[in-house]
């Protein structure tokens, strides 16, 4: 059985903490261990920040939609913006020696590291959609 939680926020950094609160509630309810819960929180944080800053470009009239779909042992998080979309394949590798001292460009790398699955796509009705999934480890 799945359950769904959805929220939409304006493109404001101060609302990211609200998403973090919901993320914590979801991972706690599913029983993720402390480490995984904090990494999921970071991955969702990074996705929402990207949606606000790079997708919506902080436009006041554009929202970020976040949807959590929970199963017994997993959570899938969808983050959608209403921007022009981008190609994640074009992102430079932050671990390449030439990029190590770049001040930015690590968010998606962290998302891919901490979640089991991360997919970027263009939403059929416009904007970018990120789908991330994490399965609970067997204890």
């Amino acid at each position, binding site marked *: 059985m799945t359950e769904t939680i959805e929220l939409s926020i304006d493109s404001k950094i101060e609302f990211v903490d609200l998403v973090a609160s919901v993320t914590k509630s979801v991972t706690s309810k599913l029983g993720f261990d402390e480490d995984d819960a904090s990494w999921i929180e970071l991955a969702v944080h990074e996705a929402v920040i990207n949606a606000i800053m790079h997708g919506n470009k902080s436009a006041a009239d554009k929202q970020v939609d976040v949807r959590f779909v929970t199963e017994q042992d997993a959570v899938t998080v969808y983050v959608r913006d209403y921007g022009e979309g981008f190609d994640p394949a074009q992102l430079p590798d932050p671990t390449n020696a030439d990029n*190590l001292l770049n001040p930015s460009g*690590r968010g998606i790398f962290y998302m891919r590291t901490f979640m089991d699955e991360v997919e970027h796509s263009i939403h059929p009705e416009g904007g970018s959609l990120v789908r991330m999934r994490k399965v609970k480890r067997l204890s």
Partner: protein
Amino acid sequence: MANLVIKDRQAGDVTILDLSGKITIGEGSVQLREAVRRLLDDGKKKVLLNLGDVSYVDSSGIGELVSSYTTTNHNGGQLKLLNQTKKIHDLLTITKLLTVFESYDDEATAVSSFK
């Protein structure tokens, strides 16, 4: 209440910044940037960031640590890390930044490492 509280103290000619709270996009990152900038403007070029009480860091915060490091270097100074939390250690390891930062768990050793 501020997301990040920064207190500075001297150990000889080394300035220790005790950071407490979150280094994240927006306020926390900006506060760190301004604190390091102020030290360099005052001619304090030996900087030790004490991260022991940092509860949360995002990619922007990691980026700010990198910026602080490069800005200090470009101004002829040195910036080192003290008391990385496990989370920060993991984030630095994953992005191969452990090779960039000089990092210590003991304050006296860290202070004496500055030339």
